[in-house]
């Protein structure tokens, strides 16, 4: 990191990094001003994947919008589904059943594992560690099989509903998940032996892209990137939502706020997530997954087909202007997504469609802080720093 400027020759060169680059993992672009191999200036550009999600939110009803949330952070769609419906439910002042809360935690933590695993694989791949990529994708594949069996889809899960979830866990889900969390720490240890004390990995990540705690807060960093700087803040602990106060887990923190610490924090978070999943499975309550409120959740199919009341309720839920209608008001709800604080600010005018939906994406603020971490460093560190931030273009541009 140091010495980059000392070796400078005085000749400047502008390098366009992205929007199509193997290490950007999505369409984002950084314009680097280089002097030799040292980065003088970095200008990140966003917007290549802008899809108008916030505008769409003003035209889709509350349940329709769930499919849009899948596409924000496409590495952990279940976390986005969860964060969004939680905001709507808090706006409606309803609380879902205990079983539903536990299932949502279960899925959110599994998707955190999947997200961190993909991050681990690709961040290591960018720095040349190919086997780590294969190891982490092998584990991720097991998780995706579980997601596929539970939700019917691998990526576009759309699992949550306002007032509940799409369906209960499939038969044998608990066994599948239990088997996964039993074997996973062993598998993660393999990665630890490959990377944690690896000379090359340490040289490429230690002291690279460091940011202080004060700067991290000023830049609005959240999640693993903030915790790597030593700030022990986790929304699951600070503002427990959806029964997170009933599980115990530790919040891992780093000290230097560099790429290596971000790596260590994420590695430990995976182990903690396994612990949460085990506790959730041990204490999984019985009962219904959906709220018994005909104005919020869909009736059973048998009711909708077999009884006139069920048919009416079904009709009322899906018809324009009859479904879920939060009272006039506004609410900001933040959840701890794998990348950091994912917030939904919803303004309701009392109709079935939100008046305004604002998504507060963690990646947007992480990408903004990139020049702060890059400038003065080496050009090869760009890949390491970008990888360590885990900027997801879908969530960055929305």
């Amino acid at each position, binding site marked *: 990191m140091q010495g980059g400027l000392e070796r400078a020759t005085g000749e400047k060169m502008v390098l366009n990094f992205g929007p199509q680059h193997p290490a950007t993992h999505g369409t984002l672009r950084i314009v680097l001003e280089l002097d030799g191999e040292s980065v003088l200036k970095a200008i990140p550009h*966003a*917007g290549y994947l802008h899809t108008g999600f916030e505008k769409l939110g003003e035209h889709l009803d509350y349940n329709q919008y769930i499919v849009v949330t899948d596409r924000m952070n496409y590495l952990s769609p279940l976390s986005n589904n969860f964060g969004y419906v939680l905001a709507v439910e808090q706006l409606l002042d309803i609380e879902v059943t205990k079983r539903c809360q536990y299932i949502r935690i279960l899925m959110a933590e599994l998707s955190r594992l999947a997200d961190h695993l993909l991050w681990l694989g690709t961040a290591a791949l960018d720095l040349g560690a190919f086997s780590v990529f294969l190891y982490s994708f092998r584990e991720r594949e097991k998780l995706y099989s579980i997601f596929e069996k539970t939700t019917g889809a691998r990526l576009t899960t759309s699992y949550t509903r306002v007032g509940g979830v799409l369906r209960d866990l499939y038969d044998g889900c608990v066994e599948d998940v239990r088997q996964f969390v039993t074997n996973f720490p062993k598998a993660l240890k393999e990665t630890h032996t490959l990377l944690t004390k690896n000379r090359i990995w340490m040289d490429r990540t230690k002291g690279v892209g460091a940011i202080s705690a004060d700067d991290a*807060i000023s*830049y609005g960093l959240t999640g693993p990137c903030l915790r790597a700087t030593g700030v022990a803040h986790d929304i699951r602990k600070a503002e427990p939502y959806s029964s997170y106060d009933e599980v115990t887990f530790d919040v891992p923190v780093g000290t230097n706020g560099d790429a290596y610490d971000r790596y260590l924090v994420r590695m430990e978070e995976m182990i903690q997530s396994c612990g949460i999943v085990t506790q959730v499975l041990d204490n999984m309550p019985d009962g219904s997954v959906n709220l018994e409120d005909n104005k919020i959740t869909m009736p059973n199919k048998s009711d909708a087909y077999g009884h006139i009341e069920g048919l009416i309720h079904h009709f009322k839920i899906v018809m324009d202007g009859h479904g879920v209608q939060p009272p006039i008001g506004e609410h900001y709800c933040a959840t701890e997504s794998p990348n950091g604080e994912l917030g939904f*600010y919803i303004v309701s005018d009392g109709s079935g469609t939100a008046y305004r939906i*604002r998504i507060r994406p963690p990646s*947007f603020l992480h990408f903004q802080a990139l020049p702060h971490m890059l400038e003065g460093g080496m050009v090869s560190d760009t890949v390491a720093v970008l990888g360590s931030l885990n900027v997801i273009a879908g969530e960055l541009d929305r």
Partner: protein
Amino acid sequence: MSEENQVEEQPTPLILQKLEANHADALLAHDETRGTVVVVVRKEQAYAVLEYLKTDPELAYAFLVDVTAVDNSQMESELMQFDYARFMVVYQLYSYQGQCRARVKVPVHENDLNIPSVTRLWQGANWLERETYDMFGIHFEGHPDLRRILMPDDFDGHPLRKDYPLRGHGERERFNFDKQNA
């Protein structure tokens, strides 16, 4: 607020006590919903209030979570409240020290879309304000680099305004490809 809260007589949150003591003339309204204090602040004093919230050692709202805006032009009840201010710029704040959230809202009239930038207080405000400018056309005075961020540089209009149609208007005319086919 509702009658229930008056019966319980909840203590006034610290942030409101302190704002009423130090910036009473800036406050237009305040409310507390679901544990978050919401204050509506006059535009002229918005910067001073935000600076106060950030730097006061007891409040220490050090984390600017989000900056966005709401176009109230289709929400009559909101529009009526603050003298027909079309836009409401919304700041979400969080205090690591007190582990609590606050929301500061600033009414902005359509005939004067300028509002002081808070980039000097929080570095993270830079892109958030750029996005608000891009989507709503709110002009942040003193911003170091107020350009569009999500939409292309040569884009006309501000997509999240309520008078902007969902499917856009006019963009396709610029594509020669379409003209040839027509």
